[in-house]
């Protein structure tokens, strides 16, 4: 309420609007969160109750969160996941920001065609692409490690280039032109103008890259499957599956544990999405 009062004198229409928007927001939040609550409830159930129609735990097995550490070396997997996600994200930022800028704000012949190719690069089914690539990495002797998954991010990530380009496009051209008039090189314009202005977009892209790699299951399975020392957290799920039975309670407990670092990261990173102070200063 205070926010409204701060801005304007009392305004009934505004207040009603406030209530409507906030109830809607709350309802949405609950709707999104509810299934996660079920994940949590399943995670603290007994093996015999998990995945039954009884959604409320008969007994609370908090020990499940401890037990999973006995069943799988989660801390080692955590380290590997961190390595994969952090390096991939760093690599993506280094390679994709300049490429996105070149596709959004630099003028050169063939730009549109190249942009379409970037989009097209996402349209080959990964299951098929994996066949020749696996053989290549294998002939380099790099299967059994996370490098076949990390290295590509230092060169080319179509999703991120596409997303960043679209964000950079929303920055009015006048800012870039002003920088050029002031004698900035393109590199300086990129670093001084575009990167700070596109901060929400860059933060979002980095976050997605991190989370995509964090939850990546098939990549690590394909490339590190035979070397459990290199496994990532997402692969830990397979430790709770037998030939004819799954320990759903433990699997859900691990699911939550996998999500925790991601949630923490999101809570901190989302500040970057909040409208930046950056704008007010730039447009002089």
């Amino acid at each position, binding site marked *: 309420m205070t926010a409204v009062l701060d801005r304007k004198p009392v305004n009934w229409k505004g207040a009603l*609007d*406030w209530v409507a*928007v906030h109830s809607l*927001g709350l309802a949405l*939040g609950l709707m*999104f*969160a*509810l*299934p*996660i609550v079920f*994940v949590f409830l*399943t995670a603290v159930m007994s093996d015999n109750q998990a995945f039954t129609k009884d*959604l409320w735990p008969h007994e609370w097995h908090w020990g499940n969160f401890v037990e999973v550490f006995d069943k799988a070396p989660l801390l080692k997997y955590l380290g590997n996941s961190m390595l994969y996600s952090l390096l991939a994200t760093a690599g993506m930022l*280094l*390679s994709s920001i300049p*490429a996105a800028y*070149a596709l959004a704000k630099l*003028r*050169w012949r063939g730009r549109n065609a*190249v*942009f*379409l*190719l970037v*989009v*097209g*690069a*996402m349209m*080959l*089914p*990964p*299951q*098929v692409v994996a*066949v*020749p*690539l696996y053989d*290549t990495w294998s002939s380099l002797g790099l299967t059994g490690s996370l490098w076949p998954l990390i290295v590509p991010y230092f*060169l*080319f990530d*179509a999703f991120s280039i*596409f997303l960043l380009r*679209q964000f950079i496009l*929303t920055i*009015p*051209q006048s800012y870039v*032109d002003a920088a050029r008039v002031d004698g900035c090189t393109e590199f300086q314009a*990129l670093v001084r103008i575009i990167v700070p202005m596109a901060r929400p*977009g860059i933060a979002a892209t980095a*976050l997605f890259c991190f*989370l995509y790699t964090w939850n990546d*299951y098939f990549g690590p399975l394909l490339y590190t499957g035979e070397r459990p020392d290199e496994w990532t957290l997402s692969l830990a*799920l*397979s430790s709770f599956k037998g030939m004819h039975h799954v320990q759903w309670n433990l*699997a859900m407990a691990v*699911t939550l544990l*996998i999500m925790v670092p991601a*949630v923490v990261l999101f809570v901190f990173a*989302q500040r970057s*999405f909040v*409208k930046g102070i950056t704008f007010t200063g730039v*447009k002089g």
Partner: protein
Amino acid sequence: MTATLERVDVVRAAPARGRSRARHRRTVLAFLAPAILGFLLFFGYPLVATIAFSFTKYDLINPPEWIGLENYSYMLADKLFRTAVYNTLWLVVVLTAARVVFALGVASVIARLKSGVGLVRTLCYLPSLAPPVAATLVFFLVMRPNDGPLDAFLGWFGIEGPLWFADPAWSKPGITAVMLWVSGDLMIIILAAILDVPQEQYEAAELDGAGPLRRWWHITLPSISPVLLFGVVNSIILALQLFTQAVVAGSAASGSADVTGNTKILGFPENSTLTFPVWLYTQGFRYFDMGYAAAMATVLFVVSFAATAVLVQRLRKASYQEEGGPGA
């Protein structure tokens, strides 16, 4: 605003002297160098390999054997190829539209929140953080017919819920529901774009007496149109590549869900969850016909690339016209 137009290029580039133009070209090349290398290695090479495999019989072990267009002609006889095309087209149309509209709607609501923004944003994004197999299975539990929470909720309104994943008519809507639930990434992208719209534009419009809806329609939407374009294209690709969620939904409906999404049962019920990538995977890795799978991949790539190229050009033109109107 019209600066993204190509004709500005000409105006700007023409008077530039040769040396600076060469320097400009070097800058472009430097910015794109890693991407070009990566593109050739991780896309160009697999693409060429896939197209080459598509003309061969290849069991993944023995050297591919040239068979010309046989794999392509087999598609005409393959009943499930048609089913898979239908399922994926269904998802491309429904999932794309639903996802973009839904994400835009939720982001617009969040953008207008004045307190609790962080909390709501986190809650909306939470599902996207769950591993896809787990996310699908949880939804399966929620939408469990007869006694699941969703059916209980619908029961309050006297509605008997459908059988969702167990019914061939409702399994794809069920998968769509899962995908909307995990569309937090697109919401965040759109939200970031909405928050990026310079505040002074709104203030100017407000002075002109524009209400919130008109401001949203005339300022927010045009400003974030590049990001919406991303949302559309990204959703199409997501629908075209839909694999894990379809496999998990099918396996859970057949009563044999497993935590890693590994299953023998694909497409259950009645092949309604047999998406194009699922059938392609089945042919390539379960039936050991990588040649046919490669042909399917080639068809998927060519068709979706052509369609997206047309779409991108169209949407771009449309957004130029909008930008061109008030901006010029």
